[in-house]
């Protein structure tokens, strides 16, 4: 694949994905190591701050108007999509196996909470670590491949995890791990209370969101973009491209793990659905719909898709048909996604 072709996936996300002078690090974090010559200004663009504040305000108010369990599901998937976007939007790698990290972490945290009696924070942490380890192993084996090969190979590894989950004793096969206790967070917050659970999930989501934002807008993120735009050139400038890509992959896997582990605690269930390859497809769709390589796109995409699934749930196979149709429309005529188009309208990267 030539550099020109590889560039297309990244830039299709719209102007947001192209390195602009406005890209900046969040305030109060001056300790970031200066890597090479990546120039980073110290200011977060105002419109992104505004968008972030609006998002937080909406999410804080939402549970008083909308069913909180639905919102928690959407938030978990939003974090999952943000983690996924880190890879496709900023490194230009399409992973078709991210379900392995979501579902793998879900099983790990559910098992830790139910069988070992871990408190929720430890269970989520354990799930996250498992996802990170999976990310290191799978990443090390796949990161040298590109484009379609990368998509195919990650898919195959995710299938290995799926069949392992299907057959291993502790995952409960078709039943999954049910009735996982939500427990008491840090010994103080009783997560059986819906609102306590909701704001915990919201906090985890925002933390993950900011980590992704920070990573993208750091010198590290600039190098990732440079690799996406022109890998040989980045290498010739002295960057070890494979290391950067691997770190991005592991970070993406880890955050997907956070999403999966949290999801298992929220829904008190870890099941095969989360490791199946259709889940990997779903996260691609969320990110594509919201806007590849945009900051807020994956969140919007996840909310739209989860709402759709909610409304169409009673109609059986229609969910798949609608998902497929959205895929086709997005790829053919709507490649920037919702937020990408919006960003183009206001002429600012969102």
């Amino acid at each position: 694949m030539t550099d020109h072709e590889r560039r297309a996936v990244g830039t299709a996300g719209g102007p947001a994905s192209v390195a602009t002078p406005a890209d900046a690090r969040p305030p109060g974090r001056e300790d970031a190591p200066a890597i090479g010559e990546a120039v980073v200004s110290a200011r977060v663009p105002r419109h992104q701050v505004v968008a972030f504040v609006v998002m937080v305000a909406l999410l804080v108010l939402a549970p008083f108007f909308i069913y909180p369990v639905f919102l928690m599901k959407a938030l978990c998937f939003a974090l999952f999509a943000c983690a996924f976007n880190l890879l496709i939007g900023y490194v230009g790698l399409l992973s078709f196996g991210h379900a392995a990290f979501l579902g793998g972490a879900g099983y790990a945290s559910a098992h830790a909470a139910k069988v070992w009696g871990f408190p929720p924070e430890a269970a989520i942490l354990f799930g996250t670590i498992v996802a990170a380890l999976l990310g290191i192993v799978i990443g090390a084996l796949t990161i040298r491949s590109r484009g379609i090969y990368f998509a195919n190979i990650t898919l195959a590894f995710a299938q290995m995890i799926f069949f392992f989950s299907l057959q291993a004793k502790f995952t409960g096969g078709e039943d999954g791990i049910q009735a996982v206790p939500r427990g008491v967070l840090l010994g103080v917050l009783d997560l059986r209370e819906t609102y306590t659970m909701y704001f915990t999930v919201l906090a985890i989501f925002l933390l993950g969101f900011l980590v992704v934002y920070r990573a993208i807008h750091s010198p590290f993120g600039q190098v990732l973009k440079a690799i996406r735009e022109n890998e040989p050139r980045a290498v010739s400038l002295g960057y070890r491209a494979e290391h950067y890509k691997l770190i991005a992959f592991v970070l993406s896997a880890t955050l997907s793990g956070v999403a999966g582990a949290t999801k298992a605690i929220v829904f008190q269930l870890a099941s095969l659905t989360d490791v199946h390859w259709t889940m990997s497809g779903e996260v691609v769709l969320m990110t594509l719909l919201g806007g590849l390589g945009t900051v807020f796109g994956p969140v919007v995409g996840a909310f739209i898709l989860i709402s759709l699934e909610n409304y169409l749930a009673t109609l059986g196979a229609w969910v798949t048909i609608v998902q497929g149709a959205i895929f086709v429309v997005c790829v053919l005529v709507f490649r920037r996604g919702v937020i990408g188009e919006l960003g183009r309208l206001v002429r600012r990267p969102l």
Partner: protein
Amino acid sequence: MTLFGVPTQALFGQLLIGLINGAFYALLSLGLSVIFGLLNIINFAHGAQYMMGAFVAYFCLQWLGLGYWWALLIAPIVVGLIGIVLERTMLQRLYHLDHLYGLLLTFGVALIIQGVFRNEYGSSGLPYGIPAQLTGGHNLGFMFLPNYRGWVVVFSLVVCLATWYVIERTRLGAYLRAATENPTLVQAFGINVPRMITLTYGFGVALAALAGVLAAPIYQVNPLMGADLIIVVFAVVVIGGLGSIMGSIVTGFALGVVEGFTKVFYPEASNTVIFVIMALVLLVRPAGLFGRTS
């Protein structure tokens, strides 16, 4: 009689099942390889098109009263034509973009097709009988060979080798290979490359449909019959080397057999063995067993 501590009856039985699966892997990965060679996209709709082939055979019987042999001819043509329409109306718009968009588009198409069929026919299988000429079987002494299964193995092998011959040994195939290397130059020589791409896609899809008809009497006709199979076939293609014709045929059959034997000796791993092999192959040869590194 036993061999390696396993009754030979079971051993050869699994070998046969492995060969059958291998025949489908080979046919499907061959189609994927042909398409990938020229279009550079992974056709995610391949599993859905395989399923459509089986359904066309079913419709032929139910609506038109046309049996298996007609279906073997009609299904590839019908599904191939649908593929050509798909290529002309949608895929063609994506060639100037990253090839991953082709993958995403065909993935969406696969979801739509499978959803529509599942809506109409549910998730349980519809029966499809073995043609009268191929019922029964032969006792080979060491094992019992059902005629239909033998037919599937032989027929798919013939189709695979014929495809290989056309692509590697004829003038048409030479054009095709040339267009894979450098489409612009081939176009300059007066060959209609866009039409060739369209027909190639149609042919690859027709191969999938043919596999679907062959599979109908064995696995029943089921809207989701291709959904999980195609993931395994992707792994087969990666092992063989994307775009390699002979590679996909050989690895298709070989991996089917390996999978069959795994079922005998270590059943727990039979679902994953292909993926494990894939991981190992990639460590040693990133371009696949028969692939060329560019």
